[in-house]
């Protein structure tokens, strides 16, 4: 039976506000249920209690002695007060007693219905405190996946590369033609001096032309190489961007599924909280139990195949040897049940002989299954309680499928 940290943060604030005397009865009732489950809040509660009973009076007295608007009493006024005190004590007449009904820690929840509207406001303000204190669960995680930069320009780069390759090819052709022409004059008649001079001039021109072309070719080739490099790197970047986009998408899916789980868990908690409020408001038995010194409260959780704790399944309010109130949720929503069945609770003790505690009935709202047992003899000898499916009307001994089982700790976990 794991702890039930319903709305812990809101209760942290309620714990602090408890000693202001400004909690509504319903808030106080819900807080007590939470304190039964939450060690951290219980420790805090004790700390605030000690703070309120001891430290704050010291601080208030110190602040009072610092105040500059205090009324002054003469020695004779104090002597007179002392005389009155002694007279009062001698006569044994009770002092002007505050007409305050004796209040114990057992603040029975009353008028909770009237408080309902107020509570809604109260809780929502507490909720605000919580929200500003902690960053809330992301409701709609959206991640903008930007298109990989550079991909858009890829086409241009390819065109440029083609152009450069063409230019290199043209230059190579021109160079080959120039070499051709250079070699041609050698085959011309060597006797023709004029021709030779002209040839030599032409040769020089061709050499220059060739030199220029070679330079142009080299530069074009280096451009080509750099374009190739650039294209290669932009492709790598594009690949990286694509991988990143994929991982972001995966993360987004994860976040969404976490969000869904959180929402489901939250709606379960909300459901339980709503039920708590409901039975505080309507159920006189629970109102009377809350505040009992030896009250034990436990939630029973269903466990699914994965071993994960699933929905809360039942809640037990138990005061040893006096009273047991058992709430079951969704008992009838079990798979494989016949149309008309009864849910019967059994208590068993060290003698292993289960005793029927009675049949569950559905409450007026049909929201939950309820079972009450106030039989002191039965309660005194049991340390375990379980629920079985039985034919309508119940059985003398447990015969059907066991739905839930809870061991009753004898240590009260309530204040």
């Amino acid at each position: 039976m794991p702890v039930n940290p319903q709305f812990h943060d809101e209760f942290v604030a309620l714990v602090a506000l408890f000693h202001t005397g400004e909690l509504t009865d319903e808030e106080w009732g819900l807080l007590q249920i939470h304190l039964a489950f939450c060690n951290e809040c219980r420790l805090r509660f004790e700390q605030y209690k000690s703070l309120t009973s001891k430290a704050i009076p010291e601080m208030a007295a110190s602040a009072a002695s610092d105040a500059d608007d205090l009324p002054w009493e003469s020695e004779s006024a104090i002597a007179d007060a002392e005389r009155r005190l002694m007279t009062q004590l001698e006569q044994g007449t009770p002092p002007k007693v505050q007409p305050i009904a004796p209040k114990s820690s057992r603040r029975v929840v009353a008028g909770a219905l009237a408080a309902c509207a107020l509570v809604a406001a109260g809780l929502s303000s507490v909720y605000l405190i919580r929200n500003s204190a902690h960053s809330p669960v992301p409701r709609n995680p959206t991640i903008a996946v930007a298109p990989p930069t550079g991909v858009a320009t890829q086409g241009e780069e390819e065109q440029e590369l083609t152009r450069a390759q063409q230019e290199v090819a043209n230059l190579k052709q021109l160079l080959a033609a120039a070499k051709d022409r250079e070699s041609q004059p050698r085959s011309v008649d060597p006797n023709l001096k004029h021709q030779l001079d002209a040839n030599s001039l032409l040769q020089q021109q061709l050499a220059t032309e060739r030199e220029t072309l070679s330079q142009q070719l080299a530069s074009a080739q280096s451009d080509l190489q750099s374009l190739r490099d650039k294209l290669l790197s932009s492709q790598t970047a594009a690949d990286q961007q694509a991988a990143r986009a994929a991982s972001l998408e995966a993360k987004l899916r994860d976040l969404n599924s976490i969000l869904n789980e959180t929402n489901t868990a939250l709606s379960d908690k909300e459901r339980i909280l709503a039920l708590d409020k409901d039975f505080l408001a309507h159920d006189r038995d629970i109102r009377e139990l809350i505040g009992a010194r030896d009250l034990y409260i436990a939630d029973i959780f269903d466990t699914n195949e994965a071993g994960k704790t699933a929905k809360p399944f039942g809640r037990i309010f138990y005061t040893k040897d006096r009273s047991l109130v058992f709430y079951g949720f969704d008992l009838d929503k079990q798979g494989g049940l016949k149309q008309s069945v009864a849910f019967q609770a059994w208590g068993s003790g060290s003698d292993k002989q289960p005793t029927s505690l009675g049949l569950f009935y559905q409450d007026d709202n049909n929201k939950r299954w309820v079972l009450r047992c106030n039989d002191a003899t039965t309660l005194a000898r049991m340390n375990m309680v379980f629920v079985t499916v039985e034919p309508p009307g119940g059985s003398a001994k447990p015969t059907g499928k066991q739905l839930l089982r809870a061991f009753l700790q004898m240590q009260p976990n309530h204040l």
Partner: protein
Amino acid sequence: MNADVIAYVPNELAEASEVGEAVVSRHHLSDDASSVMVLVEPTDEHLLALVGEGSRDALGVLFRRHARTVFHLAWRILRDESEADDLRQETFIYIAERAQLYDAEKGSGASWIRQATYHRAIDRRRYLDVRQHYNSEEFDEKRVPITAEHSSPSSLDGKAIRDRLSRQLTADQQQTLELHLFEGYSLREIAEKNGQTLGNVKHHYYRALERLRSHLFSQKRG
């Protein structure tokens, strides 16, 4: 054990010296002298022990010693002289009846008197503010839970705590804490007074109190 108690008894109140009362008392400090009679100013703790045995004289000394502190503390919360006077009477009747429950190991006698005064005054104030049908638990030695004792700081200096806290709180937080805790205003009244929402005031109060809590309980852990 006596030494421990004395170590955290706060300075005697100003009134004590004015009274200048001396009571004959047996002094236990020296073992060699079998029984030495000395004149000493009785401590609050000693007086409370005597009150617990039914001594009216000891109650009178305690009254004269603490009358003004009790009156001022009550007046600050109740804002009415005759209410404060009534509350003082009631507090000392409580002291006369419950002195035997006072335990010097849990705190000084003066602290105990201040606590009894403060809690009665706050309850009275809440009663007078009829809008609150709900009261804090009346201060009652019998009801202080044992568990709280273990975790509570043994030595409390109200002035020192206030000074340290005032450096850590915003003006709003400090004002809310002081009006509510030292002067008994409800959070709703503070909201009306300052033209703030109740939610805001609750928030200030919660922050301030949480600071105070961690201030008092975190040093304990270390």
